[in-house]
Each structure stands twice: as structure tokens, then as C-alpha cells.
């Protein structure tokens, strides 16, 4: 039915199967749109956020997906700037994932702010000292870059590429991709950092507050490193997942293994600095502002195990596994390690966003709990459904994995 749209030389499931696959996600998307509509039309009273838990699921989601989406910039950087051609086979997929993560995050942010119609004030009257300004500027710029990176992939659709003007434009745009890769890396570097800085600068929240290095708190750099660790793992994992779901070989194992290695190296560096940072924070930053650090791990379910899980189980362990070639060569270990890397980074973002707000500041504050409302979950799933749909459509109609054709023929 839609065969003429599908890239040559690759096999895609029949159209009805594709529709069957899309349908539930489409329904989830619809539900999500309804939830988001309620939040926009009725106001954020539809959420379970409140004055004390002013940031909730959405900010957590944003921080996490943007860390995961870091694969796009990191891969682009390695491929176009450092010329690591191994990554050519995943760059398109990485770009789509990046686009999904970033556009999803921005869409949720637009629901999250109370006055989206005035959101442009941030551009018109920016407070250049705010991390959120940095995030906003970089996110929008980088999203533009991602769209420009995604455009050539779309233009390479089997039908679209037949239009000479599009193809010629694509060709020329693609030649300049190094510029976008560079700009993207630059922007990503800053907004990944600023997202870390977002909480790191909160002097009033000693759980999150970190001393400044230069003009940024240490979490700025930790976020960049952890995003660089999470990005390749996310690409690895999604690629593997798509391979499983589509029952195709899409990239060579060396590529996945290489992604794992990248993740492992970055994670090792990250964990090293994270440990140093944690020690400084526990022994100096936090107590000097009147907060004994152990109290943070004294409440509800948030024991020291959280820190242990984040640094050791989901940090050191996958880092060591991924650094060893033997484990990388083994699919099971590779995938498990990647999952652990992502879990570690997701946990880090959770701790920073949710636990920070749950913890009391004033002596007579209570430890707070927060459970998102269905509208929040719906909006959350909107992004996931949107991501799955966009990825599925892209996978079906666009050449996401250049090696697929070749691998299919060598089967």
C-alpha cells in the first residue's frame, strides 16, 4: 500500500500491521492531547503540583529525556567533528531520537508554564543570569538545529528525493552538516549543563545546591558528562529495541559495541567527578549552610541506598562492564549495562528534581509527597506516544539506518 514510500532495499511490515502498531500509540497520543488540553484550558490545577511541589513529573521528564537525547549531539559531534565514521550508521536514528526528546520536552514545557502565550518574554526580556534562560535559548536554538538535521533525512524519503530541488538542497545542506553538528554540540553542551545548573544554583535548597566552578555549579558539568554517558546508551538501546521489534539487523554489532564503549568511558569520568562532588557536598557545602547532609537520607523511602544505587549500582557497575571488551561483545551484557546507565542517569534526575522538593528546608517543614495526576501522566505519555509514532514513521519511511540494506543482503 505504502510501498512506494518505503526506502529501497529494506523490508517493512505490511501497512495494516504498521497501523495496528501505531493505533494504540495514537490512542495514547489522543489521551495525552486531552490531558494537555485540560491543563492549558483549565489551568494547572489539573495537576497535582502545588506551591511546595512546584516542579513535578514534567520537569523530571524534561531533564531525563534531554539527557537521553544527548546522543544526538554527542554522536553528531563525534561523527562530523571528530570523524568517527563508525557512527555514521546510527546518526540518522540519533537525530530523530534527539528531535523527539527535544521537541517533546519543549512541548511539555509549554504546558508546564502557566502563561505559554507570554513565554516569549524570556527572549524579549531575558535574565541572562538565569539557568532557565540559558536552557530556553539553547533548547530552542538546538531544536532548530535538530530540525535542520532532520530535514535532510526527510528529504531522503524515496518519493521526496525524486524532486530534484529538494535533493539538491538536501545534498548541499548535508555537506554543511559539520556546522550544525558543531553548533549543536556547542548548544547542547550549554543546555545540558544549564539543566544541571537549574537545581545546582538553588541556594535555598541545600540538597541540590553546589559550589560554583567558574560561573556554574558543579552539577552543570556533571550533567554534561552524565548526558554524554546516557546519550550513546540510549541510541544503543533504542537501536537494539528497534532491531528486536522489527526483527531486522540494522547496524553492525561493532557499532553498538562502540556506543557502549563511549558510554562506559563517559560514565567512568562522570562517576569519578560525581563521587568527588558528593564528598565535597556532604562534608562542606551542605553543613556550611546549616544542613547536616545525613538528614537528607533520613526520610521516607529516601535512604542512603539511593545514593548507593545511583553511584555504584547504576554508575560504577555499568561503567566497569562497558569498559571491558568481553562484556561489550556479549549482547546481553551490553544491553543490560546500557539499561543500567540510563537507569542511573534517570535516577540522578529524579533525585535532583523530586527529592530536592520533597525534602524540607525549614525546621518545621514536613517531608512532602507528590503523586502526579492523570493529566500529568497523560501529558507525559503524550511525549512518549509522540516519540514512538514519530520514530515509527521515520523508521518506516526514512532511511534511518544506512547499513540496513547492506546487512539485509549479507544475511
Amino acid at each position, binding site marked *: 500500500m505504502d510501498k512506494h514510500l518505503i526506502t529501497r532495499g529494506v523490508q517493512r511490515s505490511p501497512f495494516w500491521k504498521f497501523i495496528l502498531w501505531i493505533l494504540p500509540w495514537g490512542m495514547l497520543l489522543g489521551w495525552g492531547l486531552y490531558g494537555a488540553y485540560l491543563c492549558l484550558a483549565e489551568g494547572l490545577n489539573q495537576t497535582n503540583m502545588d506551591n511546595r511541589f512546584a516542579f513535578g513529573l514534567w520537569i523530571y521528564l524534561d531533564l531525563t529525556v534531554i539527557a537521553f537525547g544527548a546522543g544526538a549531539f554527542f554522536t553528531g559531534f563525534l561523527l562530523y567533528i571528530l570523524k568517527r565514521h563508525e557512527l555514521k550508521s546510527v546518526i540518522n536514528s540519533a537525530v530523530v531520537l534527539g528531535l523527539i526528546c527535544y521537541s517533546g520536552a519543549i512541548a511539555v514545557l509549554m504546558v508546564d508554564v502557566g*502563561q505559554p*502565550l*507570554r513565554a*516569549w*518574554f524570556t527572549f524579549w526580556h531575558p535574565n541572562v543570569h538565569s539557568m532557565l534562560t540559558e536552557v530556553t535559548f539553547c533548547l530552542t536554538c538546538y531544536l532548530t538545529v535538530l530540525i535542520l538535521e532532520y530535514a535532510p533525512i526527510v528529504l531522503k524519503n524515496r518519493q521526496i528525493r525524486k524532486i530534484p530541488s529538494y535533493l539538491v538542497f538536501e545534498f548541499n545542506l548535508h555537506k554543511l552538516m559539520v556546522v550544525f553538528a558543531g553548533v549543536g554540540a556547542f548548544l547542547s553542551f550549554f543546555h545540558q549543563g544549564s539543566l544541571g545548573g537549574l537545581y545546582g544554583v538553588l541556594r535555598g535548597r541545600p540538597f541540590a545546591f553546589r559550589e560554583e566552578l567558574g560561573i556554574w555549579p558543579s552539577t552543570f558539568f556533571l550533567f554534561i558528562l552524565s548526558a554524554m554517558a546516557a546519550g550513546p546508551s540510549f541510541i544503543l538501546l533504542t537501536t537494539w529495541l528497534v532491531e528486536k521489534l522489527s526483527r531486522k539487523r540494522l547496524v553492525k554489532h561493532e557499532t553498538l559495541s562502540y556506543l557502549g564503549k563511549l558510554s562506559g568511558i563517559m560514565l567512568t569520568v562522570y562517576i569519578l567527578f560525581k563521587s568527588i562532588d558528593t564528598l565535597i557536598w556532604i562534608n562542606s557545602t551542605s553543613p556550611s549552610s546549616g544542613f547536616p547532609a545525613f538528614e537528607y537520607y533520613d526520610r521516607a523511602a529516601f535512604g542512603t541506598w539511593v545514593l548507593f544505587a545511583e553511584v555504584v549500582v547504576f554508575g560504577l557497575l555499568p561503567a566497569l562492564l562497558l569498559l571491558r571488551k568481553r562484556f561489550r561483545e556479549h549482547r546481553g551484557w551490553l544491553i543490560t549495562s546500557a539499561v543500567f546507565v540510563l537507569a542511573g542517569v534517570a535516577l540522578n534526575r529524579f533525585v535532583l528534581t523530586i527529592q530536592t522538593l520533597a525534602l524540607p528546608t525549614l525546621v518545621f517543614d514536613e517531608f512532602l509527597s507528590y503523586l502526579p495526576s492523570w493529566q500529568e501522566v497523560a501529558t507525559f505519555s503524550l511525549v512518549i506516544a509522540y516519540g514512538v509514532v514519530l520514530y515509527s514513521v521515520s523508521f518506516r519511511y526514512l532511511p534511518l539506518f544506512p547499513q540496513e540494506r547492506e546487512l539485509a543482503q549479507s544475511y
Partner: protein
Amino acid sequence: MPLTLTRRDILKFVGGSIAGIMVTPIPWKLLDDVSIWTQNGPWIPKVPRGALTTSFSTCALCPAGCGVQARCVNGIPYFLSGTRNHPVNNGTLCPSGVAAHHLAYHPLRLKTPVQVTRGNGTIEVRPVSLDDVLRKISVASGNSTGAKGSLALLDQRPGRTVSLFYRKQLARHDHGIYLVSPTDPILITQCLDEMAETPFGPVGYHLENVRTILSFAAPVLDGWGTPAQTSPMLRTRHSSEQNAVKVIQIDSRHSRSAQLADQWIPLKPKTEAALAFGIAHVIIRDGLYDKRVIGRRIPDFNIPGKHSYSDLIGRFTPDHTSELTGVSSDVIVSTAHSLVARGPSVAIGDGDSGGGPLGKEAEIAIWGLNILLGALESNGSIVQRREAPVPEGFSSKELSPVMGISAIPDHSIGLLLIDGSDPGDPLPWSLLERKLIPRQSLVVACSPTLTGLAQHAQYVVPTPAHLEALTDIPTIVSSATATFSISAPLLKRPEGMTDAIEIMAKVFETEGSMEDLLKQRTSAIFATRRGCVFKAGTGTTVPITELGSPDEFWTELTAGGMWTDDPIRSKPFFQFHFMGRAPDAYQRMLDAGEAVSPLDGPLTPEMLTVLPYGRRAEVGGAQLSPLMTKLYQESGLHRSSKVAVLNPATAKKFDLVHGEQGILATACGTQKVGIRVDAAVMPGVIEIAAGPEPIGQAGNEIVQEQNILELIDPDQALPWRAFRATLRKA
């Protein structure tokens, strides 16, 4: 050349238009205007613009009668504050008073007379004409004269000039009853009348003379007296000043006064009489009283061969009292000693608004203590008070007597008229309902809003709201001298509002207007040339003699002024019966003292003791500004009637945790309450506010008010300050 438009041409045109639009103001101006629209959209109320003025009046929400200064825009008050130097409040206001100018906009405000039908959880209203209501009253009134029950008028703000009018009219009626809420200070007068050999009259307090206050569950630091009386005490709390007033709060509840007092003595519910006896026991045992005075003036102090006060007190040894009240004997002894050592001291009963009265015996026991402590001596802290002069024709013998609810036989009232519906003190409807002739009685309330008892009436006639109504403020119970002030309207009343006096006048087929009545009263006061007048405009107080005419007096009073009587010289000491003069006094007092606390009642595992409470002026929904959600829901500073406070141990026993919902049940019904855990609360009790919720935004739906007093078994009768209920998880 023929004009053929290809898709490409259209695309080009569109492209050009888009490029063109970008260099016109359209997108940029729209962006700007839309964001301005989010800032000034039509759904955002516009603030009033206009001339700013200042007016004065008197707050009529509670018996204190605070002076109010209103900042107005276009003549409409937008910010209230206390009148500077006002004798009652000296520039301060309570939170209810601060937001009192909102009451005119209360969402449950009635616009026309209505017929009320109570359903399950909701109330339906049907507008009717005032004539319809009057006709119904007339029929019912005819019935009541025709021996089909009596005509009762429940005055929820007794002591006003209009109350005198009512009593006078009721006295002329064959079956007229003038009914007041049992928590009213009038009960104290009744107690004193029972104790004194000769009629005693009202009393007041010279709290400025006092160094120790022993409060028996009275909200002394939270709305009992006037702000001018309590503010100095509160300001010197925690100070090391020698002469600072020490407040000892005897309270089963961790009430606000208990929190604020210098010492809190928690006792088992309903054992106040026992503790008063226990303290008296120590004073007498250790000879800490003026034997000469007591021996001479207390006829029943010690009567050989007969049951005397000494005998009674003799039973209440510290150990026995401790057993009864749960207060340790050391505390009983030390309290008695410190009351004497740190005199002058005074004991205050009177109960708490929502919690109801202490009960007659307990009051008598407390007054006995006061006499032992010398508080009624001529230089003591309790003084006799003159009432403000009344016009001719309103002397007490021309008035119908003041009746408490217990004095009225069950099923005897055929027509019940309610003036108020939102009093300072609540009256459980179940108690009132028992007095009505089943199915044949008519209840008509005059109320600005459909709240409180008005929800139980068949017909409600809308009266002007607070600050729209003209009314006078009687003397507050704690005042040492008579006072008189007038709450003059600051707001124009809307069409269709009728003063209660006009309805009542029609019932009694007479003439009556609030303004005339108050003018008569002010003239009567003026005529005595006694006392002095506070002028709100200048913040000064001048002798009444400086005013030239009753009209001038009237003008001052209606402009937020206040008249204060000259203090009277204390009359010589009276003879008092410490147990009252009733024949069975000894037994009744003994029973009251030995009464078992509900905490010690028949124990089933799920039973606990409910302690209802309330603040004056905040038990009636119509007296809560919609903005009071700030205090009730939005800050939790005042607990709403849907929040029950428990000791953690109690909560654990009932398997409930903080924030959960529980079901409270008695034989009379069930109520859903939110559980709040508080370590300071007495184990085994549940503290719960008797009062409505404020109705905030979008709260126009009329919902039956939840009031814990509805769970009281009418058979249990008075007092209702503690009752047993079961609690389970919702």
C-alpha cells in the same frame, strides 16, 4: 495572456505573503496584544477607581463590639482596621473582623424570602413573597394562641435594645417565650442569682487588677474578653516582668488559650466542677482564705448537722480529685497555692462558644472559688455592673423572662421565630427541634444568609448583612462597666432586605423600627448624663456632658463612637450560698463533682470522647468572609469543621494516619472527618470545631453545613461539651 494559476504560483504567492507579513506590524503587534490580553483579560476583575474616603462604625460580629475604621472607594469599604484608641479594641481587629466587609457579598446571601426544603446533603430553596411568609406566621401565631403550642422567639444576639422590644412584645403574648442560647452569659447571671441571698445583677471583670487568671476552659486569650483586655496579657507573655498576668488554663482541649496560657492544666472532660472543688479543698485545708469574711458571709459554708460546703469540699481531697480529673495532686495543690500567693486572682468559667456551657453546677463551683479567692471583695477583680439605661416601658417587670432551652417543655412550641441565625454561640438544632410540636410547628428565621439555624427553618426572610444593618452592641460579659455602641451601616442595603424587627413587629401587630428604638435608647442613656463618649473621628474620649444634645450623641455613636458608663462603687459584700439555694443543692453539686468523665465512660474499643469547640463569631457561616478560606483551608491555622484532631496514640489505636478520612458516629448520625494528628492533644479525645466552612470561590451551591453538634444526642441534653462517639476509617 490567459491567467493560469498553478500550484507553484499559489505557493509563491503564499511565500511572498508570509515574507511580507513579517515586515508588517501584524505578527509583532498581535504577539504583544495577545500577551497583554493575558494580563488584562476580561476574566480578571478590574479594581474600582474613584474617590477614597474613611468611615467609622462598630463591628457587630461578636459581643465585643470593636470599633472599625473603613477605608472606602466610591463609598464602599475595601479595607477594615480597628479604630485607633477605641476602648474595646484599641486599633485592632480579629481576622473575622478584618474581612467583615465581604459578608455583604457572601455567596449564600439571600435576595428574597425563601421556602427551604432540606434534602439529603443539599438544600433547595424556592423564592416566596414576604406576604406569604407573614401569612404563614399569622396562621401559626393564631394556632399558638389557640393552645396549639407556644410562640417562641429565639434571640441569637440577646441583650440588644431590640431584645428588650421582643421581650416586651412577648410578655404581652399569652404563650410567648423569649429564648436564648444556653451558652449565653445570662447563664452566669442565673447562677449568681441562685447563689446570692439578694438579687445580684450582672458582673464584670477588672482584669487590669488581676495577676493570675484561672480559666476553666474559657477562651480567655482567644476571644472571651475584649481585645483591649487580652492584648496586654498577650503582649507580656513569656516576659519575665513581675506583674505580668499569669494565665492558668484548665482545659481538656489543647485550645488556643491553652496554647497561649502560661500554664495548661489538662483535665478529663467534664470534670471542671471536681477540679474547682479540689482547688477549693486545698485552699480551705491550708487556711488560705479570709476566714473572717467567709465565716460571716457564706451561710452554707459550714452548717453543723447539715450537708455543708465544707463537707462537700472535704470529699475532694487532692488525691480523690486527681483520680476524678486526671490532674496530679501536686498540680492541684500548687495551683491552689499559687492562686493565693500570686493574687489578686480570678477564676473564669463561661465555657467555650462551640463547646457550650460548663453547666450550672460547675459554674457555681467556680464562683465559690472566686469568693474564696476574694475576687468579689470590694477591691476585687469581679465587680457588679449597672446595665445601660433603658427607655421607659422597658423595665424588667414589663419584659418576658429570659429562658434557656432546658426550661422549655418538649414539643411545646408551635411557632418559632429566629432572629439572627448566625450567633456568636451555636445551639444544636436537635435540642431545639425537640421543643417543637412535631409536624405542626412553623420555624421562620430572619437571616442575611442561608446558614446556621436558618438552614433548618421552613421560611427565611433576608435581613441586611453585616455593615448594612443598623444595630446596637450590648455590653460584653467581661466589661466592668456598661457600654453602648451602635453598628451603623457602611453599605447601602440591597432591595428586598427587611430588618428582623419589622417582621416581629408585624407578628405582634405593633410598630417597630430599629432606628426609632435605638434613638429612644440613646436618648435614655443621654438623659442620665452618665459616663463618657469615645469619638472615633478624633480617637478621644470626652464626658457625655460635653455633648449638647441626644442628636449629637446619636451622631457620635453612629459614626463609630462608644458610650462607657461611669464605674459604680462596689456594693457591700453579699451573702452567698456556695452551693446555691436549691433544696437539693448538696446532692446536685456532689453529683456534678463526682460525675464520671466521658473518658472513663463505658469502654468499647472504638469509643472516644468528642470535644467540640468554636470561636465566637466564627461558628456561623454568614460570619465568615469567603476569604476566610485562607485561615481554614489554605493555611490550616483555624481548623475547619471537617478536621478532627487526635493524639498520635489515639490515631494509632484507631488505625488512622494523619491526612486520612475517618467516620465519626453516634446514635444520631455520622460525619466524615479528616484526621489530623497532634501530639499535644489529650489521648482518647477528638477535638473538632463546631462550625461551618467558609465558602470561597465558586461556592454558590447550597450544601448542608456539617456541624459536629448535630451528632449530639438530645437526650444527653446540657452541657454538650464532651460526648462519646465511635471512629472508624472512611
